């Protein structure tokens, strides 16, 4: 069974080779060849996961080299290979027509195949060296795909930004591999993880190996998944072709979550690093969302939206919900790929029918015009808004896992779920509707369906990805805090949210909590955010200083 796992990354490589060699003879028909190979790759990935589940044999590993070159078949590699092959196939099919008028048609499909191969090798790698090769190749392929239009200066500039940030992220990954290899003397994952779990306290370079490796992998994940402050490349990568944006926002940017899951045996022994993941993820989610709201460029806004989602994904890892992060990245990938790939149709529709729909939902969401004050009793709305989402969340999770509430991570996730639910109801209570009770019930029903679906699928997914209940428990336990700190943080977060709600309510009535006292501060904050916190400017200044120094020293030394 594991032998077939080799085919998954090799088929796209073969496809790229054939596309390159036959481009002259087949012309634009090479795209069909590429799509055909994509279908075969997807079917092999599908076969692998079906056989894996049916056989119930557990993970298996296969190497071809004396020291490196191996693949691993476990739940994570099986599910991610299927997802990546699926997304890639959709992007391939979409590109056949979308890229038809663009120069470098055959080159595009070759690069797309090579990128698919790199990601598939990354998710199926069975040892540190193979993983490093794939991890680096993702950066390289990303650079060339974003620079597909070789004559576009902005496209190339932002491809360069992305490449350099990815390289900054690649290097901690290499260092993590060095730490793990020197501490445990193994390159292949099964041996490495066994030794890691047997001796999590092992030291290397005078530092705890598991914690150091986990910290370095986290930094690497931050760069690949656009976490603050390594996020600046993501909103600017829209100059690449739309299929590349779709592949990147749906797949490549998720690499951070996948790598954290791959090295879960290191993270389970690194509680401090899990807390770091939570803080960085939370910060990224907040900053990404705030920056998204202040953009006037819809593409950059989408980029920051992805950044916010990636923040949530990393945060989920930080609370020990590793499988939920994988579930989230798949769901987000589907959502974002749909958005990007349907953008062309939407633009076409808008050109054909430039009239806007005159319905309450459109005027509420797009025109931001609220209806008259709600006709439901104020107190009833307040109670429904606060209590019903909480009840739905608690009941749904209790039904799938009664001991769920013992975990702090679960409480945090429920808290966020609750806030989201309340936010939805709070935001829509002023929506003009002929029957407000019916509208509220429909919203609650939708919310309940989403929560129940998410809970059942999420729980099933968790037991598939991490079948060992003790390991799942250990992940949540490692992510936990002492009771006093945890309760304090929950209260603090609750207060921040409450103040935010009050502020938002008063703002909607054109009032303020503090009058005009903080107007100047608010304007400063707004200009800071609208300039994206000057982080890209800071990097530019730093790189210019390094280049200036290099030039001076070269002139002084007469270029010898």
């Amino acid at each position, binding site marked *: 069974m594991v032998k077939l796992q080799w085919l998954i990354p090799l088929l796209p490589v073969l496809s790229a080779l054939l596309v390159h060699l036959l481009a002259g003879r087949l012309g634009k028909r090479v795209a069909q060849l590429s799509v055909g190979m994509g279908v075969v790759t997807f079917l092999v990935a599908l076969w692998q996961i079906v056989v894996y589940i049916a056989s119930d044999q557990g993970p298996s590993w296969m190497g*071809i*080299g*004396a*020291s*490196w*070159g191996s693949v691993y078949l476990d739940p994570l590699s099986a599910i991610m290979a299927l997802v990546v092959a699926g997304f890639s196939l959709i992007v391939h099919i979409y590109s056949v027509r979308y890229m038809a008028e663009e*120069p*470098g048609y055959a*080159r595009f499909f070759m690069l797309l195949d090579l990128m698919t191969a790199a990601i598939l090798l990354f998710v199926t790698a069975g040892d540190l*060296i193979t993983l*490093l*090769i794939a991890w*680096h*190749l993702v950066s*390289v392929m990303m*650079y*060339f795909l974003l*620079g597909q239009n*070789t*004559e576009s*200066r902005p496209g*190339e500039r932002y491809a*360069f930004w992305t*490449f*350099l940030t990815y*390289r*900054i992220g690649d*290097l901690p990954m*290499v*260092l993590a*591999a*060095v730490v793990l*290899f*020197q501490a445990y003397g193994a390159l292949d994952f099964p041996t490495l993880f066994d030794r890691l779990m047997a001796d999590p306290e092992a030291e290397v*370079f005078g530092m705890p190996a598991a914690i150091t490796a986990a910290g370095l992998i986290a930094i690497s994940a931050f760069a690949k998944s656009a976490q603050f402050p390594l996020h600046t490349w993501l909103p600017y990568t829209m100059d690449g072709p739309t299929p590349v944006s779709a592949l990147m926002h749906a797949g490549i940017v998720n690499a951070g979550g996948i790598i954290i899951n791959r090295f879960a045996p290191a993270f389970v022994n690194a509680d401090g690093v899990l807390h770091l993941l939570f803080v960085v993820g939370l910060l990224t989610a907040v900053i990404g969302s705030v920056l998204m709201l202040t953009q006037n460029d819809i593409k950059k806004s989408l980029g920051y939206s992805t950044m916010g989602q990636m923040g949530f994904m990393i945060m989920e890892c930080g609370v020990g919900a590793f499988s939920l992060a994988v579930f989230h990245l798949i769901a987000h990938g589907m959502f974002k790929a749909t958005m990007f790939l349907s953008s062309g149709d939407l633009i076409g529709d808008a050109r054909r029918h430039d009239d806007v729909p005159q319905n309450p939902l459109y005027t509420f969401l797009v025109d931001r015009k609220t209806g008259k004050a709600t006709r439901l009793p104020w107190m009833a709305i307040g109670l429904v808004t606060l209590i019903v989402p909480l009840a739905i969340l608690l009941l749904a999770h209790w039904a799938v896992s009664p001991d769920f509430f013992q975990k702090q991570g679960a409480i945090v996730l429920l808290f966020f779920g609750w806030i989201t639910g309340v936010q939805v109801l709070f935001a829509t209570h002023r929506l003009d509707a002929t029957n407000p009770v019916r509208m509220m019930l429909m919203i609650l029903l939708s919310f309940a369906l989403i929560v129940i679906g998410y809970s059942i699928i999420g729980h099933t997914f968790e037991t598939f990805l991490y079948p060992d209940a003790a390991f799942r428990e250990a992940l949540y336990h490692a992510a936990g805090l002492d009771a006093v700190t945890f309760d304090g943080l929950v209260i603090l977060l609750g207060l921040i949210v409450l103040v935010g709600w009050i502020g938002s309510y008063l703002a909607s009535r054109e009032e303020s909590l503090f009058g005009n006292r903080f107007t100047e501060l608010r304007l400063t904050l707004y200009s800071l955010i609208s300039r994206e916190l000057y982080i890209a400017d800071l990097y530019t200044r730093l790189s210019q200083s*390094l*280049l200036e*120094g*290099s*030039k001076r*020293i*070269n002139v002084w*030394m007469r*270029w*010898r």
Partner: protein
Amino acid sequence: MNTLLLLLAGFFLPLFPLSMVFNWVLARFTHPVIRILVILVWPQIGVLLLLAAGAPLTGSAFLWWGLLTAAFYAWRLLTVRELGQWSAMLATSAFALTWVMAADSGRAIDLHAFVLGFAVAPALLVAVTALLESRLGAAYAGLVTGMARDMPRLAGLIAVSLLAAMALPISPGFFAMVGLLLHSELAPVVMALLTWLLWSWAGTRLLRNTVFGPRSGKNVADLQPLHAWGFAVVIVAAVLMNLIWTGA
């Protein structure tokens, strides 16, 4: 350890400022075959001297001298635009890392393979330099931009050569670098990683001003298909031999 021999090796496994001799030699000879031979043979002489001096050089100051030279030349690479000079400085930076390797390993075969792994990319770049000079009169980044449009084979060769120069997978330089890092101490590893990052930065700066960008400069003939195949065979052979050597 024989310090005199080590200092002598410093000319061949370039240590700054002795490294200026290596760069001067490469600039002095313009014929590509001679330059390639210098790049392939020069560091091997250094390895022989190192071995004669008594490698491994555990705890030697030469390790840090080598590391600082590597990082220094990588930093200088950022603003070099002449491809021949760029390949010479890259070779200087890469060969200087041999001192880190020698701190851990005294095995002759490891050290010879290490410098050979790092010599492939600069040698390839010398060949690319010769191709550009024969067509354009000079191999200078920015002289002709946007080559990917009209000269796809030449642009492809430049791109592959520069990726190899950045020691990216699956070039021999990548395996040489990873092999070095897996057996080194923390501080040298961090320094070598910074050097590696600077190579990537410098390499992409060259790509930006040759392969990418709006088409500018004079129109010249692309690489002949036969020559392109010749280069492809050499590159694939180097990669395959290295993969077998590293245990894939």
